[in-house]
């Protein structure tokens, strides 16, 4: 008999399973669930990009690339970051192609965190930062961003979280699930705290292209004095609807990228070759495709936000990503109860805000990666549910 507790890593076993597991089980018993629960574009990858992937296969591009990724792609990323964020990175030494943005986040955290080091994580936010920090032996220090601050990270909160053990700050904007963005003046405030400190900013900018209402994403790396303290993490999944291709990247100081590349080399070898060839096409020729997807997201965003407000769930305007994050306080239910009852009673799947950290209590996340018809039906059922309360 094998005693698995003797072999398993306690740090892994102690990671809590996601709070939405039970919803999977409930949803699995129903065949007419209408979901707003998916954080993934519903568009297929633009055909040009798929064709570039296919063509690379036809030309026999089926081998490993260099550990850091195709130089042609790193050059395109460098051009792209200069174009979009006004920061320049050396393709040879300051860019690493990863398996999705996720791998770059993992490598960045592991490159800087050792035992007992602290990583500051603003929440509600994407779920990976805490467990990765813990697995690296570090200590997650959570900052709960507030609705009244539009879920932005404030200078005051940051100051009170920093200790002499702080190694890194995660900056997850535009933010999943809150839809918050950090504007230039917000970032200036953060930069003023960090400029004279040895703290690495891991800026998760995976939703950088998805901002609305004329607000363009600003990277903290473009703020004076911050480039050498920042690793930008981005990827192709959200912008180009390429989730299944698993391709992302990190751009940052060569001293950090060099160490991240070692981790990447031993864990991964290199990112998928087909995806890398496809991604070159994405960066070169797909600006229009991105714009037309953005326009469609914007219609859905407006539809969803207005409807939530109309049915009595107060919803701030999300300025980035593709989620609405309405308050459910008017229902008198907790996020978890709300989502469980809505699923059981009306077969609508939403994600409780608490899945993204304790600070998400009182909120739900609704993705608008769905057709308007789908959104209209889901919110119609949500209204019926609210009327029964």
């Amino acid at each position, binding site marked *: 008999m094998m005693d698995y507790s003797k072999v398993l890593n306690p740090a892994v076993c102690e990671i809590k399973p*996601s709070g*939405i597991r039970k*919803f*999977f089980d409930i*949803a699995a018993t129903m065949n007419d*669930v209408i*979901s707003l*629960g*998916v*954080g*993934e574009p*519903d568009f297929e990858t633009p055909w040009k990009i798929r064709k570039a992937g296919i063509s690379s296969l036809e030309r026999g591009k089926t081998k490993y690339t260099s550990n850091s990724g195709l130089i042609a792609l790193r050059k395109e990323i460098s051009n792209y970051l200069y174009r979009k964020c006004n920061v320049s990175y050396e393709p040879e030494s300051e860019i690493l192609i990863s398996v999705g943005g996720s791998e770059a986040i993992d490598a960045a955290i592991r490159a800087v965190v050792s035992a007992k080091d602290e990583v500051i994580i603003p929440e509600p936010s*994407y*779920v990976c930062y805490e467990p990765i920090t813990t697995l690296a032996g570090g200590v997650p220090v959570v900052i709960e961003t507030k609705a009244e601050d539009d879920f932005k990270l404030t200078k005051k909160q940051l100051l009170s979280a920093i200790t002499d053990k702080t190694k890194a700050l995660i900056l997850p904007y535009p933010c*999943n699930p809150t839809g918050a963005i950090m504007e230039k003046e917000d970032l200036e405030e953060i930069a003023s705290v960090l400029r004279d400190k040895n703290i690495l900013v891991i800026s998760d900018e995976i939703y950088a292209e998805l901002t609305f209402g004329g607000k363009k994403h600003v990277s903290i790396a473009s703020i004076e004095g911050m480039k050498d303290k920042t690793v930008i993490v981005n990827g192709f999944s959200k912008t180009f609807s390429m989730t299944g291709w698993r391709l992302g990247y990190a751009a940052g100081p060569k001293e950090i990228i060099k160490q991240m590349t070692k981790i990447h080399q031993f864990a991964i070898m290199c990112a998928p070759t087909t995806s890398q060839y496809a991604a070159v096409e994405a960066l070169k020729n797909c600006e229009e495709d991105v714009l037309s997807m953005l326009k469609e997201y914007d*219609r*859905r965003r*407006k*539809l969803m936000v*207005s*409807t939530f407000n109309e049915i009595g769930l107060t919803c701030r305007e999300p300025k980035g990503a593709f989620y609405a994050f309405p308050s459910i306080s008017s229902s008198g239910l907790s996020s978890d109860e709300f989502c469980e009852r809505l699923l059981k009673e009306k077969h609508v*799947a939403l*994600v409780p805000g608490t*899945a*993204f950290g304790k600070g998400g209590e009182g909120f739900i996340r609704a993705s608008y990666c769905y057709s*308007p*018809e789908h959104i*209209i039906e889901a919110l119609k059922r949500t209204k019926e549910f609210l009327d029964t309360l």
Partner: protein
Amino acid sequence: MKSEILKLLAKNARYSVSDLAKMTSLEQAQVEALIKELEEEGLIKGYKAVVDWDKLEDAYVSAIVELKVVPKADLGFEEVAERIASYKEVESVYLMSGVYDLNVVVKGKTLQDVANFVSKELAPIDSVTSTATHFVMRRYKELDVAFFKKEDDRGQFLL
């Protein structure tokens, strides 16, 4: 804004005024006024359901008929095109570039009905010099609507 409303209605003519208003950030009254204008200006020609008739027992048959036509000196193709368009059997009429002139979609209860219509009504028209009839065997997509199921294969929850 008109073209925005048109695009949305072309996708789904049954969007409510309230949903259109939300998607375009307009007031409902503005949306109503715009739709009325679009109708009056003849930009919106009608609202119809997209039907997969093949699912019905009494499905109809349709054919694409390519017509070569001698245009009239001063009327061009207009006169004959309008005449052909006035038949209830005719679903659409297009003037084409290329080797033939008019593309006419004809429908009927049976193959025989369509064949009769072509030979008795279209072919004898004076200016029509030839016809070629292609029967539709199966419809896969009409008016942007695919008739086959495309599953959303994403999970129900994904953080």
